[in-house]
């Protein structure tokens, strides 16, 4: 067929804030024709096609269309009104438990995730986000050292801890918190990334278990370590997506940089350890995971999971009191369904010893009330 007999299509999807090829185009036999970026024209032979993409919630949206010879077609993949910050699962839970979120007061404080010291004074602003419920919070922090952890509490329930997806030194100092009660009545909290829409999309895909889409967005994670975009938290998230699909092995240098350039963050060393494990280099894996443990709590629950698996696969248990022993002890308590590391306990340094119900703000501890 001659070139002039072709038509074309451009798929519009404003919600895809990424240049990754996230739109699938299939022909009438459902054979994959191409994966393209939104707003990128694609030449096609006349016929019936379908364009589809995965929404941040994890749902797939499809739109059939016909291509005529010589005519450009435009197809819109609509997102609808769905929110993007939290996963479909979290929203279902929040909706189903919203009636139970009857806490008249709840409190938040910030803790240095490595040392356990209170740094609540680094909360610069908090606000109830537009379109979010009463128990959703936009949190901004002042710059400073170390990974941050938020504690949420209400009297009569065990305190809940969530590591925040923030880079305390750079521009990523804002995130969203969603506070809710689970079916057993425990107060829980999830953290979601703010800022760069591409990283938000990546996080949404990961939370929704849309791994191929996450890996496609994450395949561009290299640039997140460069120039003004310098975003090690987003880069680590991209690394986890690629790792899950076995596509990180050819980025050893990049992972090395993530580990060495951002010593405050355990996740780069975890990714390096996972790569070493996959390569059968047990010595290096052990060294990387030990480095990670010494840096403190991983930001992402994938990271905690990988450390715990590494430690459990070793024949010898870590020495009591070491950072590795601390992470291993955390495993039965951790909630691996969340994007970031989260677990109960009023003292994040000794969570298993502090699971008792919280009685209210302790004297001298600067909880912020909501």
């Amino acid at each position, binding site marked *: 067929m001659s070139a002039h007999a072709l038509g074309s299509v451009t798929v519009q999807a404003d919600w895809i804030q990424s240049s990754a090829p996230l739109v699938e185009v299939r022909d009438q036999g459902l054979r994959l024709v191409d994966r393209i970026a939104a707003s990128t024209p694609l030449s096609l032979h006349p016929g019936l096609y379908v364009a589809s993409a995965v929404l941040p919630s994890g749902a797939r949206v499809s739109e059939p269309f016909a291509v005529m010879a010589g005519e450009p077609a435009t197809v819109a993949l609509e997102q609808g009104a769905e929110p993007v910050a939290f996963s479909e*699962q979290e929203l279902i*839970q929040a909706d189903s438990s919203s009636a139970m979120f009857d806490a008249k007061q709840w409190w938040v404080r910030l803790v240095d995730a490595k040392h356990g010291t209170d740094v609540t004074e680094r909360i610069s602003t908090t606000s109830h986000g537009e379109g979010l419920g009463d128990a959703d919070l936009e949190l901004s922090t002042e710059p400073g050292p170390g990974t941050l952890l938020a504690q949420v509490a209400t009297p009569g329930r065990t305190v809940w801890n969530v590591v925040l997806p923030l880079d305390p030194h750079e521009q990523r100092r804002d995130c969203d918190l969603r506070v809710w009660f689970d079916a057993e009545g425990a107060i829980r909290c999830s953290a979601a990334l703010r800022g760069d829409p591409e990283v938000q999309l990546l996080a949404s895909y990961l939370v*929704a278990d849309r791994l191929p889409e996450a890996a496609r967005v994450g395949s561009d994670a290299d640039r997140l370590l460069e120039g003004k975009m310098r975003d090690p938290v987003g880069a680590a998230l991209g690394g986890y997506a690629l790792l899950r699909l076995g596509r990180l092995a050819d980025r050893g240098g990049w992972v090395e940089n993530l580990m060495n350039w951002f010593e405050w963050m355990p996740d780069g060393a975890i990714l390096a350890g996972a790569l070493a494990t996959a390569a059968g280099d047990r010595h290096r894996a052990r060294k990387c995971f030990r480095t990670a443990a010494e840096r403190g709590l991983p930001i992402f629950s994938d990271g905690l999971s990988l450390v715990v698996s590494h430690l459990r696969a070793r024949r010898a248990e870590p020495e009591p009191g070491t950072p590795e022993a601390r992470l291993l002890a955390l495993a039965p308590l951790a909630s691996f369904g969340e994007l970031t590391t989260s677990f109960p306990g009023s003292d994040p340094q000794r969570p298993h010893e502090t699971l008792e119900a919280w009685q209210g703000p302790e004297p001298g501890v600067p909880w912020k009330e909501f």
Partner: protein
Amino acid sequence: VAVWLDRGGSGARTHALVIGLSAYDHLPKEQGEPDPPDRTLFGLAQLESGAASALHVARWLADEYRHPDAPLATVRLHMAPSQRELDEVDGMKAAAAKAGRAAKGAVEKALTSWFRDCAKDPGNVAILYIAGHGIELSKDEGGIVLLADFDGKSPRILDKAMDTGNVRRAMAGKTMARTQFYFVDACRVRPEEVLGVKLTAGIQMDEPGADPPTSSPIFFGASSGTLALGRRGKGTLFSEALVECLELLALTPDDQGGWRVTDTSLVARLGARVSDLATAVGLDQRTTTGGQFQGATLHRPAKPPSVSVRIDVDPAGARGCAFASVGPTQADLIVKDHPLEPPGEVVVPAGLYLVQVDIRPPTQPFKNGFAPCAAFPPAPAPVTVPVG
């Protein structure tokens, strides 16, 4: 070792180990009874849906499972059914008589023979499904599942338990199945109950550390409390959702247009479906997933799934004289002259179609029309054909 189903055959094959626990030898009937002084039982009680879930999954494998490169060869089924399951689940008594016991000794032997079958050909597919009381330790482990003779006796409290993380790490080597799937359908032991317990299960396998599989995802369905979510005497919500996903919800077209379920399509649907089912009964259940994914095929049905498409016309005033036909082309129709008064649904094999609406008899101001239709599972978007 009793094999519940053995189809034999040579070349790459699928081997499944399916274990379901409801009746525990040493657990009290109801939650809340204090542990005997010489046992650590974590406050657990009997379950009512573990064995039914295992039977549900085993039957689905026997009746429906289809892998293009590794047909099903064996299903090893080990169960500890409750009395209610024996009484109420169709075929449970006969199945239980043929299945192995879900206690440490029998499970250890089954695990060994399953391992050896899986290790005969790297093209094999290995499937492990286990339902029972479980301890979640990480996304990449699958956790520790307590077996029927779990007795909580010191000095090895978890002696009668299986560590799926250890099993997964052991399933490696040059001739081992490169594609593996792990499903842990756990009634989660409350974390505070296991603090201070050495989390080493009695069943342990060597972990070679080299030549890991290319695909070995873990799907962990953790329900809270001491009764597995689900209907008593019937399967768990996790097993119900799993089979629904395998049959329809997780089907996705491959690059050539054939329908299949992959590790990545399953993970994208299973968690949401479990949540949906739990929410519908006022409960809360989450799944966590980990391990290695690769887009590996788990199931390819013999034919495309059937889906229901709602068809209407615009303006609605044309319904009385509108008849819809559906097919890949106007000359190749699957549904012909379906009346649209009242507007209804037509069932078609999943695919991409043209919906053509004829106005008969010719009625002004309406005219024939057509619209494309993406009839994809699980619920295609309704199609409205303009005839104005």
